[in-house]
């Protein structure tokens, strides 16, 4: 599938900001099943942008802008060609050993409830792969995925207790259980193109990946109860949301921040003129 992504993150400040620093993880990379045909990140104001790679292999842009800044928007526009590999991720850059992803982090810390949920739903017989499929079904059954607009994450344990959560915390719940069962699990932020049978395909999305000795990394999208198909575009991975967040920012001044996000990911129609 050829997916066109358009993503605008806008900030308005009641009081102009004197200086803004942002760390952006908003650039997808090629791997089997995903080819980036075009990609642009454009801030609405002048500033300095520097690209580096982090330990996970993500492209990280550091953006610095001087004020007074009363509004800033980061506009992303790109086209990605995908094929359905049933969630298997291969041919990407792996810079750290998968043992790293067995770590617990603040957002994936387990409590007793999560541990027994993991053991009851997936701790039994079967291969590791079938256990993870059982876990995905159980997490999907237990958790209701709600729209992320105006909400922030609370972490795996709190989300599990609340039974409803935004996509990133549903990924955290799954990761916390997988890690408890001894498997490396990581967080993925990306986009999901609109498709009829996917309930949560409204642009930006988050899911998880688990590492198996036999297959390598395989994605699990618990909110949609599927292993990612050609609707899914992987952008960044990390130990949890905080580690792979699309934007982390700091500013001086700029009180009264108003955030607005517009995102669309759709199957591109016809031939692309700008290729």
């Amino acid at each position: 599938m050829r997916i066109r992504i358009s993503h605008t993150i806008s900030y308005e400040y009641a009081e102009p900001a004197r200086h803004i620093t942002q760390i952006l993880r908003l650039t997808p990379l090629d791997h089997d099943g995903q080819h980036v045909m075009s990609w642009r990140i454009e801030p609405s104001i002048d500033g300095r942008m520097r690209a580096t790679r982090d330990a996970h292999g993500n492209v990280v842009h550091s953006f610095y802008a001087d004020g007074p800044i009363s509004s800033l928007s980061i506009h992303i526009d790109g086209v990605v060609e995908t094929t359905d590999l049933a969630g298997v991720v291969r041919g990407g850059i792996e810079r750290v050993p998968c043992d790293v992803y067995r770590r617990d982090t603040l957002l994936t810390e387990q409590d007793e409830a999560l541990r027994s949920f993991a053991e009851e739903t997936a701790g039994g017989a079967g291969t590791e792969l079938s256990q993870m499929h059982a876990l995905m079904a159980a997490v999907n059954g237990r958790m209701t995925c709600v729209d992320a607009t105006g909400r922030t994450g609370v972490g795996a344990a709190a989300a599990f207790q609340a039974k409803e959560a935004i996509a990133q915390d549903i990924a955290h719940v799954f990761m916390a259980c997988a890690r408890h069962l001894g498997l490396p699990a990581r967080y993925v932020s990306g986009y999901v193109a609109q498709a009829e049978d996917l309930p949560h395909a409204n642009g930006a999305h988050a899911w998880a990946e688990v590492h198996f000795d036999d297959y390598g990394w395989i994605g699990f999208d618990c909110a949609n109860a599927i292993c990612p198909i050609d609707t899914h575009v992987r952008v960044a991975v990390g130990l949890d949301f905080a580690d792979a967040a699309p934007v982390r920012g700091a500013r001086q001044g700029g009180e009264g921040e108003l955030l607005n996000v517009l995102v669309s990911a759709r199957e591109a129609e016809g031939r692309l003129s700008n290729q």
Partner: protein
Amino acid sequence: MVAFDEMTGSGAELRPAYEALDRWLKETPADQLALRRSQAELFFRRIGITFAVYGDEDSTERLIPFDIIPRVLTKPEWTKLEKGLRQRVTALNMFLADVYGPKECLKAGIIPPDLVYRNACYQLEMVDFKVPHGVYCHIAGIDVVRVDADTFYVLEDNARTPSGVSYMMENREVMLRLFPELFSTHRVAPVDNYPDQLLATLRSVAPRSAPSDPTICLLTPGQFNSAFYEHSFLADKLGVELVEGSDLLVKDDVVYMRTTQGPKRVDVIYRRIDDDFIDPLVFRGDSVLGVPGIIGAYKAGNVTLANAVGTGVADDKAVYSYMPEIVKFFTGEEPILKNVPTWRCREPEANAYVLDNLEHLVVKEVNGSGGYGMLVGPHANKAQIETFRRKLKAQPEGFIAQPTLALSTCPTFVASGVAPRHVDLRPYVLSGANGISCVPGGLTRVALKEGSLVVNSSQGGGTKDTWVLDA
């Protein structure tokens, strides 16, 4: 359990280093000693050398009790100890360079890889990053204890932001003022050049792009930190600015300090803020103590952080148990300082032994520090032991256990007079581009409660001046 006594050995003799001190203690009238002790306390109160105890709501600031009887080491004792410390810190720095670089020690099977990779202190940001001049742990505080005349054990390597050096200096200052006569009868190696050595160390590791007179500052979490006094003390002695996160700003990967003359570029930061809080853009986003962008500047090679980010993986208590092998692997020498025998509870056999012998062992949380989260079996009640039994069964990999060591004792003033109390020693080892330095002695901490083995100031410990005799 009879411990080795610093003054009397096994109890019968008087060790030569303490002869003059013993005479002085016997000859000085009791009322005069009492007067000097109260003067010492007054001195500490006046200079305001205090620390905060976390979780103690009654008082945010307390005085660490100071005992006027010094702890004495002979020159040969210190020489051997210092050699061992240099070797240990060399190995710590080589280990850090290796785990963040080629990972030879993991490939060689010296230490299980998951102990490093799953460790939250192993900072992924540092992987394949070359720190300025190859130095990771610029300031180390190596806790050692003595069990007999010849044997020192390393109890803990503090490779993150070790504190206490201000007490080492103030203790000497107070002793010099109150007991000048003792310093005319003893040739005590000075410690007052520590700030000069620290400054030289910090200057030596400035980025190569920095001017020959680099700008250095000391970054503190602020006045609510338990060691804030020390931060301001050291900044003053070093002659550098004491700054909080909000005093620094990062622009285009360069760190500036706000001054009355405008922003001033900073080259080296002696930071006393933990990794997790130092940059909200990279580590904990809820940190208001740190400096947004400082890691970007660090990784661009524009500023040196001392200590480097990610040194915690070297002083982790589980990694500690592998230090003898680590020392051997990196230095090619036998370790001069011993490790305390350690059971790794992550190994089922070891954990079974620990569970069977809880009442005799000291159990420590792998990620705990400062005496928090620790069980001293022989001094614990049934309920405390059962709590730890549950913890050990639920999460064995979170703990290590060690035998209860007979830490050496040193004569100490207590309510009933002078009595032996257990002591440890924290020497401070500095590593710069030009090698390692270490002022003679360090900070002696003393457990003031009779029989207690916990010397931490947060748990009722005090301090003493530490003498290394030149002759």
